[in-house]
């Protein structure tokens, strides 16, 4: 079991979460060329080691998180809210 420290709920089992995917993907503008969309939707670096990925705390606070995790050891290095404004708001209250 991976234990994920959710910034809203505390540390929980990964079975409470749903894995999203590669968190480094940035979707291009709607009118961007087809190649950019192809790369964003289909192409992956598939890192062996530390990567940033999205997880959805679907059986908890239902927030999307950006988790920095090692894909070989499953060690978690950092967790932050995926929504940038939410991350900022948390920093202010902290």
């Amino acid at each position: 079991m991976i234990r994920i420290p959710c910034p809203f709920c505390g540390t929980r089992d990964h079975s409470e979460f749903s894995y999203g995917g590669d968190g480094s993907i940035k979707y291009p503008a709607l009118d961007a060329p087809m190649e950019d969309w192809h790369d964003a939707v289909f192409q992956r670096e598939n890192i062996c080691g530390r990567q940033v990925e999205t997880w959805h705390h679907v059986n908890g606070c239902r927030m999307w998180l950006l988790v920095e995790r090692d894909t070989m050891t499953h060690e978690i290095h950092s967790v932050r809210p995926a929504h940038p404004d939410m991350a900022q708001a948390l920093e202010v209250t902290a």
Partner: protein
Amino acid sequence: MTRFSAWNVFWQGMSGQKGWSRQWRDPEPKPHYDVVIIGGGLHGLATAYYLAKNHGIHNIAVLEKGWIGGGNAGRNTTIVRSNYTQPGNREFYEHSLKLWEELSHELNYNVMFSQRSHITLLHSPGAIDAASRNYNIMRLTGNDDAEIWSLERLKEAAPHLNYDATARFPIMGAAVHKRAGTARHDAVIWGYARAADQLGIDIIQNCEVTGITRDGSRVTGVETSRGRISTYKLGLAVAGSSSRLWSLAGMRHLPIESHKLQAFVSEPLKPLLDQVVVFGMGGAHFYISQSDKGGMVFGGDLDWYKSYAQKGNLPIVQDVAEAAMSVLPCLGRVRLLRHWSGVVDMSMDGSHFISKTPLDNLYLNAGWNYGGFKATPASGTYFADLIANDRPHRVVANHDLKRFERGIQLDERGAGPDPKLHG
């Protein structure tokens, strides 16, 4: 090398089993090969074998980081079937099944291919309609063993399933693929290794590739833990490690994510289940068969997050155990013998790649999702054909890396471009 035959088995029995020779050589790597295949798994060895047999290329090395049969070749649930519906996949897997039917003779090695049939349980009228459509596609494309069974017929063939009408998902019928079955995974890899070795191919174990050297858009050779090897053509057949080898060749992106898939085998039981049985309903996914030794071999979904670790997580063990209990309640007191996990390369549409690459003489065999074992003979045939002729065979014309650019997705499940969903 001693050929296997009834006479030889008899003769060796009479002479103390002293006359058998080793099944394949253990050669030192040569400085140059015409073709180098990275990955001494089922697909790599099959590719080397068919390159020699079908295309007359014999100066080939198969490089394996560990020992052959130690990767996903030894980590699967040994199911062989061809119940696919997408154009390309249909022809590919049907060809593979036909090759399986002759494989023991072809390799002079008993791969214990047992066509015991593959039963997909159906739990609603809608599921029966959908399965009827799929299995009609199979019948219309040359696979006349596809059948839809009534509950009565199913009960006769597989009496121990949970037929309780009050089950959460009562069984209403089944889609049956009668030529499907299982084979002994070790025998398949040993058979291909032995047959490839006989054709002059060097199988080099404990040889890790640490670098791929290039001259512009051409691959010139590989750096390995056992020295540098130059080659005219390089093939990658490394399953879950495709992206890692891809980056060694100086490239970054593939339409692949590495995930891990767990499987299980129980203590040996007396004959209980004559077929491969598959249960898929809602969030549950489960497949089971009984090995010739009596062990119940089964598995379920992958671990739901990307991983390169060859170890599984416990929530999936629980999911699989729950599914086992709902399909075969008589397994409740059976003890688990072994449990393992393998890294699979999940592709963006659930179908594989047998493809040319941006480099002139680098070829890729990857993206096998859950289904690499059954594909072995056809994968070897078509990948060898691609490497020898430098153009894809008609059957794998859409199994290239550029299919998404052309708007083509070979998505059997209709799950969309999310690798973990293509179970």
